[in-house]
């Protein structure tokens, strides 16, 4: 089902084709670099390569950073709480997939 009168857009998969520095990730999430580094140090963002200042993050980090920042803001969770919530959310999503439900 596509609309005939629209051009077709071609995008790139973020995970495969792109990595981000902490600064770029911060800009994408509208957050300070310090917040991004906090998330990385808490283990909320997937392991990044390199020394702290040269960390590179993939698409998965972008997704998790956005969820983490939303939870921090909307539910006023602290970092440990956010980390726990995200781990549990992923576990629930995996279990739901096993049950054939929408993750």
């Amino acid at each position, binding site marked *: 089902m596509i609309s005939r009168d629209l051009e077709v857009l071609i995008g790139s998969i973020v995970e495969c084709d792109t990595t981000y520095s902490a600064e770029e990730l911060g800009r994408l999430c509208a957050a300070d670099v310090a917040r991004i580094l906090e998330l990385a140090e808490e283990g909320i963002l997937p392991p990044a390569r390199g020394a702290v200042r040269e960390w590179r993050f993939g*698409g998965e980090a972008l997704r998790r950073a956005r969820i983490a920042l939303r939870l921090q803001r909307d539910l006023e969770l602290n970092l440990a709480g956010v980390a726990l919530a995200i781990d549990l*959310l992923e576990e629930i999503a995996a279990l739901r997939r096993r049950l054939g439900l929408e993750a």
Partner: protein
Amino acid sequence: MEFKDYYKIMGVARNATEAEIKQAYRKLARKYHPDVSKEKDAEARFKELGEAYEVLRNPEKRAAYDQLGTGHRAGEPFRPPPDWDAGFEFSGASDGGYSDFFEALFGRAARAGGRGRRGFAGGRGEDHHAKVLLDLEATLAGGTRAIGLRVPEVDAEGRLQVAERTLNVQIPKGILPGQTIRLAGQGTRVHGGEAGDLYVEVEFSPHRLYRIEGRDLLLELPVAPWEAALGATVQTPTPGGKVDLKIPAGSHAGTKLRLKGRGIPASPPGDLYVELAIALPPATSETAREAYRALATAAPFDPRAHLGG
């Protein structure tokens, strides 16, 4: 425009204290947060909740809202009286995305605050983020899908509006759940500046045959007891078409066979796991029942041996 009863939305009394309002917000926010909640209308409820909290937590807005009187019922047609908010000062900008009702009451303040940040010629437009639910076929074969998005847009007067927008997007073959497609230049357009990008996060709806686990797929394949016991070659569906699969003799329910590289065609490609399920032939004819009896005598078997006792 419909009247919104912010007290009712938050489930608090009109004379609730600030502490009670905060507590109610926390509780409902945990329940309806779109990242956490599985409630059907979580996103809409959370938005409504955020709007109600935005008004009731702020003493100036709350006082102005209370001023509207108690005679209104939720959902009834509503038009703010002229000069209804005279004497109230609103401070701070809202995030936007609020209802018409909110915009009519507090929108002027929100717009005044918003103008500084938005619509600034020569700057870079904001990036947008969206989530879409695709069918598994989209990643198996690639192809174009129409994606419906709700996009906040700033109109000529600087007002924030939510527009429905459809994009035809070519789905990269092999994209995995949780991955993001970046569409350059599809974010906010700004006059005289570079447009922002649109980031679309991909999830897949449950598939009729395959369970999706990252890049791997899992198929439950029913086999007859003799196929599992004696071994057999059976036809099985795979994303690339039907293949002949050799079932090793002595297989049992839950045996997993791996078809390397037959999962999602990412790089590296995922695998297809075929998990055997034993389907019993019905004993509806006398011959079938006789065969079951013969098997019981020929191969004595206690399926409950491992339970002990």
